[in-house]
């Protein structure tokens, strides 16, 4: 594009002048500008913005891009495409997170334990082997029609 090299992101800023220049480049206040820690992971001088999703932004303000809730020229979060309104939402939850996770895991573990116990110790009404008529289906199972089949009696009187 037609933007000059110093308008593009660069390496991690070391001196305060570099920090001020980078803050001006990204349209941020010098106090607000906080680059990612210099771990060599590849962030460079890109600012570290708070991890808030676009859901949390005011829906009634006249954004330049209302669906993204983003203004022209405003520095975008590194994970901007994750925080759009179709995806990750970091709005505050009504119930605290630890309560939610506790309830969920208690329920899940109870159900799983009950299922496992049901597999190890199955319980059902007493059953016996299945009884077939016609001498245990002698002819249907390929018995010789000329021979007398062995008598099978399933009852007792």
């Amino acid at each position: 594009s037609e933007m000059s090299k110093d308008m593009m992101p660069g390496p991690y800023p070391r001196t305060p002048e570099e920090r001020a220049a980078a803050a001006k480049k990204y349209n941020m206040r010098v106090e607000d500008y906080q680059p990612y820690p210099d771990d060599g992971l590849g962030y460079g001088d890109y600012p570290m913005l708070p991890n808030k999703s676009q859901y949390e932004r005011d829906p009634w303000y006249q954004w330049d891009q209302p669906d993204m809730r983003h203004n022209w020229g405003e520095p975008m979060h590194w994970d901007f495409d994750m925080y759009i309104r179709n995806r990750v939402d970091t709005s505050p939850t009504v119930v605290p997170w630890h309560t939610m996770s506790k309830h969920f895991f208690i329920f899940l573990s109870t159900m799983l334990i009950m299922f496992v116990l049901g597999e190890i110790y199955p319980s059902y009404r007493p059953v016996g082997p299945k009884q077939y008529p016609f001498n245990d289906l002698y002819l249907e199972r390929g018995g010789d029609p000329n021979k007398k089949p062995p008598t099978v009696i399933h009852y007792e009187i």
Partner: protein
Amino acid sequence: MASAPPPSAAKLYRPNQYVSLPAELDPDTYDTSPEKLRAEAERLAIRSRLKRQYQLQLNNPNRPAVIENPALIRWVFAKSQNVYPTFRPTPKTSFLGAVYGLAPLIFWFFVLKSDRDRKEKHIQEGKVKRPFSVFF
């Protein structure tokens, strides 16, 4: 003997890294110091300058077809082309690279190979018939 005062609502909520604190529990909303007001005023100045630039371009009778957003261009550049120049091999990055790059490869190699060796041993011993498959 008085007990400790009840924990604040923010402590009961226990802020975590996944969701943000509700505005009512965040002490930042109740902070009305002049520094905060000045910071807000400066931010407003920057925001209105950018808005003015954008609106001038938008309502221009000879508006260009695409109003390019320098923030978007910078974001794309930072994510795609600025990663390699700013990457540096440190103990943390080499460890992460080994964990994410090499470990799955080696793990699955050993799992699949041992599974296939076990099946081949069963077939040679005659326990399992070799399945007839044309493609692999």
